[in-house]
């Protein structure tokens, strides 16, 4: 089956009706923040299928997340991978998100936030796709709007991303676009429990997200579709099992398809 934009729209709509309020997206961040004075520990394991070889690209991104206050949160990240050589550290990143608009009603909300990411990386630059989250040195600035309507959450993210030279002499290729516009459209749905009666109940969420990138300098673009299963234990520990598949691309990408396994644990009110 060949994917096109209509099948993406169809899948997003399929996931939407009667969706419970779920916005803890896997491939994007919601406009909501984590609780203030709390810490989050997150480990993202990317297992990507390297094209034209039998190798699995493994990226590990551990993150420490801090809810500074009700509007502002910070993530610090480390980037490790086996891409160029043996498994080793390749860089670090700083992500910050500021929620500037919030309208809450009992069963709905609309929130908007701006975010920025600053990353370093010393890996080899081997693809046209720009990804400051673990591949490129550079920065990203963007906005997020998340709406919750009658227990259905949908989120839109748009960002500008700029790649710079990677460290250790891995310069950004001169003839390659170094600027990108990214977008993502995410929706999720609570499958279990049917009714909440305690914080100990395990939650099961399904999410569908469409993510894409466009290079204004060259007109090249790609679009991916992702599907995720999310389990939340004890209302505190989250496990995401997600698969990402390229729908369309006219740029060079070395490993666009693969799995993301993520574990996240929140420490409420520890600071």
């Amino acid at each position, binding site marked *: 089956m060949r994917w096109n934009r209509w099948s993406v729209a169809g899948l997003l709509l399929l996931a939407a009706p009667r969706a419970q309020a779920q916005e803890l997206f896997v491939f994007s961040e919601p406009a909501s923040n984590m609780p203030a004075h709390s810490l989050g520990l997150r480990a993202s394991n990317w297992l990507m299928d390297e094209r034209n070889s039998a190798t699995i690209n493994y990226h590990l991104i551990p993150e420490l997340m801090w809810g500074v206050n009700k509007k502002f949160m910070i993530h610090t990240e480390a980037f490790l991978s086996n891409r160029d050589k043996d498994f080793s550290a390749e860089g670090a990143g700083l992500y910050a998100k500021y929620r500037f608009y919030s309208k809450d009603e009992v069963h709905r*909300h609309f929130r908007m936030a701006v975010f920025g990411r600053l990353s370093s990386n010393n890996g080899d630059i081997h693809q046209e796709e720009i990804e400051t989250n673990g591949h490129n040195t550079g920065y990203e600035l963007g906005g997020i709007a998340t709406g919750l309507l009658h227990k259905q959450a949908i989120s839109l993210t748009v960002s500008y991303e700029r790649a710079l030279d990677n460290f250790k002499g891995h310069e950004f290729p001169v003839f390659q676009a170094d600027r990108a516009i990214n977008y993502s459209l995410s929706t999720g749905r609570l499958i279990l429990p049917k009714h909440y009666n305690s914080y100990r109940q395990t939650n099961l969420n399904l999410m569908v997200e469409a993510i894409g990138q466009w290079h204004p300098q060259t007109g090249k673009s790609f679009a991916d579709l992702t599907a995720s299963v999310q389990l939340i234990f004890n209302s505190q520990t989250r496990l995401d099992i997600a698969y990402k598949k390229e729908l369309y691309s006219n740029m060079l990408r070395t490993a666009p398809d693969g799995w993301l396994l993520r574990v996240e644990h*929140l420490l409420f009110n520890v600071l």
Partner: protein
Amino acid sequence: MKKLIIAILLCFGTSGAFAQITTAKLTAAGLTCSMCSKSIYTALSKVKFIASVDADVESSVFTIHFKEGADINPSRIRKAVEDAGFSVAALWMNANIRQTDIPAAQVYLSQGARYNFVPMGSGAQVGEQSFRIIDKGFVTPDEEAEMKRLSTSVTFPEGGYHVKR
């Protein structure tokens, strides 16, 4: 005169000896999951004048039990909910109001706070009563707009919290 002094002393002696506001019912807004509910629950549980919290995850309603004899600061409750990332949609205080706590019509003093009953509802009365705080940050955005509209025709008393039965 002696009787009056004794009466005044008795008043002072008894105020705070048992809490007039014992519990509150809070409805939170903007929640999306049990993880969110738990962050509110944890934040409320850490507030120093709160003894315990019962959460109804499904309806986002939290029953708050206050520590006996402690001063109650409703703004601190609101801050805990907002720091957790959400908003207060409703806060109902459950009180056992005594005549001595009503220094003037429509005014109720308890546990370090002043509650002004607004003109459009019935006022403070002795006995078991529930009243709702209707100030900004304690109501939904729609209700807040309604309050703003009302405040152009009705004069709200100044100071303290504005409440309605």
